[in-house]
């Protein structure tokens, strides 16, 4: 039984927080929010369920979300480092892939719609702006990790629906299987929509306002954090192909890039 005091505690802490976050979302212009939710729906389908065109990868998704909100540069500022961070999350078998679409779309939408113009990775920028990029990327990573649990629940639900399809093995009605497939697609689209709106609410009402309260030392650390993305990508690739095999090719690319930069 739930103790009677816990509801009071929830009302005293959680409810006002959620109400404030919800009010933050309602204060945003509705058209970009609706477009972002639609984009999250479509790209969530593309991620695994339908076509898999890779437009749902963080870089294109961030760029498209930014363009929809009228600031493609901020979309790129978030999409590029997050792409590098998740480069080795490959959807092979049952391995970890995260839930990147809703996370990146909400991250970009939250930043742009609240007027945060984030700087590009490793470019000259004030510490506060670079810190805001790091803070947003932390949120996007947390959303992606949390969303993965939802994806796992969704896939377990697919199993239950798949069992429903066994009736076709008795009556021979193949239309049922197509309806079940359509139901799974609808569930994925709905998951993208709901997660995008939920993450956007948290970004606008809670996460971004919290940034102003962070101590200066943490802001300085957050400004350094996005610089972790490129080394992480290179380390991921080296690990993926095996360093013994990869180091010559990576070193070759590095030398070529440095020589080209030096000549230009």
């Amino acid at each position, binding site marked *: 039984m739930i103790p009677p005091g816990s509801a009071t505690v929830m009302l005293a802490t959680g409810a006002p927080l959620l109400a404030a976050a919800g009010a933050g979302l309602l204060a945003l212009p509705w058209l970009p929010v609706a477009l972002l939710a639609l984009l999250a729906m479509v790209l969530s389908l593309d991620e*695994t*369920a*339908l*076509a898999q*065109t*890779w*437009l749902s990868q963080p*870089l294109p998704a961030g760029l498209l979300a930014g363009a929809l909100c009228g600031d*493609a540069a901020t979309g*790129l500022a978030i999409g*590029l480092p997050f*792409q590098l961070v998740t*480069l080795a*999350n*490959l*959807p092979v078998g*049952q*391995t970890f892939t*995260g839930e990147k679409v809703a996370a990146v779309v909400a991250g970009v939408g939250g930043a742009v719609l609240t007027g945060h113009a984030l700087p590009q*990775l*490793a470019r*000259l920028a004030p510490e506060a702006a670079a810190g805001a990029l*790091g803070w947003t990327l932390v949120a996007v990573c*947390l959303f*992606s990790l949390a969303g993965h649990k939802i994806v796992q629940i969704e*896939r*377990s639900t*697919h*199993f239950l*629906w*798949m069992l429903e*399809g066994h009736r076709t093995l*008795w*009556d021979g009605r*193949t239309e049922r*299987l197509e309806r079940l*497939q359509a139901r*799974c*697609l609808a569930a994925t689209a709905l998951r993208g929509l709901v997660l995008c709106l939920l993450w956007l609410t948290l970004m606008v009402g809670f996460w971004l306002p919290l940034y102003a309260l962070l101590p200066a030392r943490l802001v300085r650390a*957050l400004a*350094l*954090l996005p*610089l*972790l993305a*490129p*080394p*992480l990508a*290179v380390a*991921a*690739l080296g*690990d993926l*192909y095996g360093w013994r095999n990869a180091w010559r*090719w990576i070193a*070759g*690319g*590095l030398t*070529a*890039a*440095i020589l080209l*930069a030096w000549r230009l």
Partner: protein
Amino acid sequence: MQADRGAPPPVELPPRRLLWSVWLRALALQAAWNPQRMQNLGLVAALAPWLRARGPAVPIVRRVCRRHYEFFNTNPYFANFIIGGLMRLEDESLREGGRGARQVVAFRSSVARAFASLGDQLFWLGLQPSLLLAASVLAWSGRPWVGLGLIVLLALGQLWLRWRALGTGYHLGLDIVDLLSRPSWHRLIRASQRSGMVLAGILAGVYLEALAETPPGGIRAALWSVGAGGVCGLLLHRRLPGELVFLLGIPLALVLAVL
């Protein structure tokens, strides 16, 4: 010219409209992905238009569905080779009064495994990292829309491949094994993986150049990058997701911010 007496009769492909219906449903092969039987529902849903077009008696429909509602997993980009092949073998089985069912199941299982391995090597471990790294390098150098264009081009290419694969799978039937054994697949895999490695090196070069040009970065940022890269390598080797490795970088960044 007279045809060879021993040559098999030419294979007549199913109508284009039927292939189109199967292709559309096969795009959603993984929509009902589940940990227990993976793509089984997607496979039978993709075969459903073909089964309806053939219009066999209900007991035969039930048998075909039962055969393919078992565990099925392959690479989604190559799945249509198998779906096309299954349509051909099932057509032959229907003509022969349901014989050859074991052969159909053996074909599906063995070819699915081979295409899963080939497709994962080519698409997930080769083309995807390479393409995304190329798009990232282009974005970094101020051409993000060119990178997006590359991704759109590859998307169109894979949709075309899936369409061609359906017809090729049907045309080849059991002979699809010959297609699998072509050495060009492995050359393509090697080339795409090597280009991924080179692009990772280029990314590192572009990044170090950007750090050198950013005054507050300097030695501190370069040290941070090299040290963090080493730690990331160790963590990634333990199969931690990239997001978690990134979050584990916060304490490291805090230490560096204090120094």
